[in-house]
């Protein structure tokens, strides 16, 4: 049942020009960054080779690439998640799902999975770009996998937050702005914290993503993203239930 809803969500995404435009622009931006990163590497390569423990192409090209993918996701997820529930509320199509013999959890998970599959496509392309580097050299596969894992976890967290904000309103644009604001806030919340063990560092999404970006797969960070995702999925279910119970 979850997959039926996810498949419908994907179909609706791909039926709208918005998804294609977002996908095309994202890939354009990522590909441009990728090429400029290669250029930069090319420029410094001769000097790097003189260093004793020089950073490889994975560190110089792939890690920054996924760093920019994370920023790009931050901008793109609100646009893609805004219509998930807000539009169904506005068009009163949510009735179809609620009248069907489905648990609220199935509806929410289906929507979440649909968006996550779309985001997986967004992430797959930079992954393929990174793999193309095998043509001219050798990659640090550990670092690459850590980055992939971190990006997928990040996408899941963003998607769950976007889904939740979308359940709060019947206006997709309001949902997009709300999600963007919340994500940006969580991204940079640690900037204000001067001391290194401030609690704000634990809250900041960027901090946790940074370890993956450096190749550090840490259970603490995995738990952070898992809890983040779970929290907003549960909140979404509760929110939809509350709509049914009424104020």
């Amino acid at each position, binding site marked *: *049942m979850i997959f*039926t*809803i996810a498949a*419908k969500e994907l*179909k*609706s995404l791909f*039926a*709208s020009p918005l998804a294609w435009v977002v996908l095309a622009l994202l890939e354009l931006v990522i590909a441009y960054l990728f090429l400029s990163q290669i250029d930069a590497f090319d420029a410094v390569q001769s000097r790097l080779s003189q260093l004793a423990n020089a950073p490889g192409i994975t560190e110089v090209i792939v890690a920054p690439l996924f760093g920019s993918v994370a920023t790009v996701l931050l901008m793109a997820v609100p646009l893609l998640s805004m219509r998930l529930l807000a539009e169904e509320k506005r*068009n*009163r*199509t*949510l*009735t*179809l*799902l*609620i*009248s*069907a*013999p*489905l*648990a609220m959890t199935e509806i929410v998970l289906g929507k979440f999975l649909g968006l996550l599959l779309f985001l997986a496509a967004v992430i797959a392309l930079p992954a393929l770009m990174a793999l193309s580097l095998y043509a001219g050299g050798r990659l640090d596969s550990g670092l690459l996998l850590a980055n992939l894992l971190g990006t997928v976890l990040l996408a899941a967290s963003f998607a769950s937050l976007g889904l939740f904000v979308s359940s709060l309103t019947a206006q997709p644009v309001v949902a997009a702005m709300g999600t963007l604001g919340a994500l940006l806030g969580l991204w940079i919340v640690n900037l204000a914290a001067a001391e290194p063990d401030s609690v704000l560092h634990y809250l900041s999404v960027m901090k946790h993503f940074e370890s993956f970006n450096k190749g550090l797969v840490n259970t603490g960070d995995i738990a952070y993203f898992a809890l983040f995702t779970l929290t907003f999925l549960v909140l979404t279910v509760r929110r939809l239930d509350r709509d*049914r*119970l*009424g*104020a």
Partner: protein
Amino acid sequence: MTQQASTVTVRASALHRSFGARVAVRDVSFELRKGEVLGFLGPNGAGKTTTMQMLTGNLAPGAGSVQICGIDLLDRPTAAKARIGYLPETPPLYRELTVDEFLRLAARLHRLKKHELAAAVERAKQRCGLVEVGRRLIGSLSKGYQQRVGIAQAIVHNPDVVILDEPTVGLDPIQIREIRALIRELGGEHSVILSTHILPEVESVCDRVQIMHDGALVYSDTIAGLKQFRQGHSLVVGLGHPPAPAELQALAGVAQVEVISETQFRLHFDPEDNPTDALVRASVERGWGLFHLSPTQASLEDVFVQLTQRDEAQP
């Protein structure tokens, strides 16, 4: 006894729902049997839609319970919902899907097995006259066709209970006739609840009627009972050579004569003592030249007024 109990498809008991301080539905109880078509009648804002939302699990009742085929909607929502097909006021249509895709999705969501899907979609399309538009996008269909797609999604999983909220709104007269015929047909094997504020609609398709007013059920009877109830207590008479009004007044049973024009009169009478026969006789005998005779029926508005007034008189 058990035989009879098993044919009850919907049982609502003491449903109550308020939004803030406003009470939308109060103490609504009724039963519906298999094969019956029940009409929910009432002015706008009477609580019809709220009641239907509670019956379909879209809104949790503040108090009371709903049983669908003996399954409690609150205790086992998914099992109960699988037996309901619901067309809300605004048909829940995904405009970016084609009719076929949408009906397949609706069937899947109602947990139909993969191998049953094609047949179920085909049957629903046939019944709702959608065969030739199956490959078109819902967004490009006319309002009438969209309404039919809405009905098709409500019956695609062959539910025991079909609940339709104002199914004929916005349709042209031919489509209205088709939809009414479809509802009659559905009544054969499903139980149907439909809401409307059009009285002739109820008379043409329903077996039973319930009238809601201000969130409460004020009237519940069969269609024959409603017709009886609407029987008026006056006649409009047209006479070519009218006598003096006093002469009409003198007829047995006439309580009051109202002069509409020179040749038209309205005769009020007691329900037990209908003067029609006496009037016709007198007209023939005395050469009044009767050319028009029609019993007036109480309009829907009159029925509402009567019902609500009766309600206030006997709280």
